[in-house]
């Protein structure tokens, strides 16, 4: 088997295992990454919401925010895992698509 084929398989395995990135933090009671709190989270930490942060933090509304489907935020971890796997799959497919598109312009024939 070609090495690249094995690497593609490796990626597929990583997609399936990706919910570990949800389960482990949950299990070990770890919160947000440092500096990645929502506006309310900042308020809990320092007692106020910085004005600029409040304005700009809601500037962009991502279609699959935080790798979870809209309205699924309070669902159990199993559902979130499904959303996480689907997000990983979509994200990877988009990355691959963009790179192949760029590759058309950026690579030389050999």
């Amino acid at each position, binding site marked *: 088997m070609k090495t690249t084929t094995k690497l593609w398989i490796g*990626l597929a395995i990583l997609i399936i295992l990706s919910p570990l990135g949800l389960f482990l933090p949950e299990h070990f009671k770890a919160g947000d990454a440092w500096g990645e709190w929502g506006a309310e989270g900042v308020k809990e930490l320092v007692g106020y919401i910085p004005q600029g942060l409040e304005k700009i933090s809601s500037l962009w509304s991502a279609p699959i925010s935080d790798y979870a489907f809209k309205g699924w935020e309070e669902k159990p971890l199993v559902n979130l895992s499904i959303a996480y796997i689907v997000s990983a799959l979509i994200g990877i497919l988009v990355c*691959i698509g963009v790179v192949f598109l760029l590759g058309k312009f*950026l690579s030389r024939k050999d």
Partner: protein
Amino acid sequence: MHIPDGYLGPATCGFFYVVMLPIWTAASRIVKKTLKARQVPMLAIGAAFSFVIMMFNVPIPGGTTGHAVGGVLVAILLGPWAACIAITVALVVQALLFGDGGITAIGANCFNMAFVLPFVGYYLYKVISYNSPLNSNRRVIAAGIAGYVALNIAALFTGIEFGLQPGLHHTSTGQALYCPYGLNVAIPAMLGEHLLVFGWVEAIVTALVIKYLQKQDLSLLGAQEEELI
């Protein structure tokens, strides 16, 4: 390490877009010269790998979470400029589709993770593995050290960017407008957690894949060497 919208003031956001513009241009120019058409799938795998490895949030029990970037591995295999492009693609997709990292902070996030990280990692790997055979253990160790150090330097830059904000932007009463923590908090927090935990994740991921490729396909490890000669 993905700075969200609202944590960096307009000046910092603009500054890093301006800094990244020539870097992205140079990356495109250099990759256009060196990337062979048959390497495009590897570049796609690199971008996809970096994207998905960042989803593996690693917890510090009772504390924060963080993750590897996978960028040092991509840099070792494809060179730092190609890695810059691959990681940029992953970061832009994360910001636009998943709200992971702010759109105003794409310049800064790319500077930290798609520029500083692959370049520090790549050259450190080069220096440590200098003249060693492609299948040597020194390569594996070099990859691990490069991963650890590069992720930490990237975290240090992120900490500095966060920490500069209260000084740059605050109200007359002293309330911060953006990131509320100064350098004295942001740098120890960002650097501490990466030195302690997340750096090791990048080190292990990088070293293990290099070890695997040594057994699997030495030509992938050598591809970068030929390019330079």
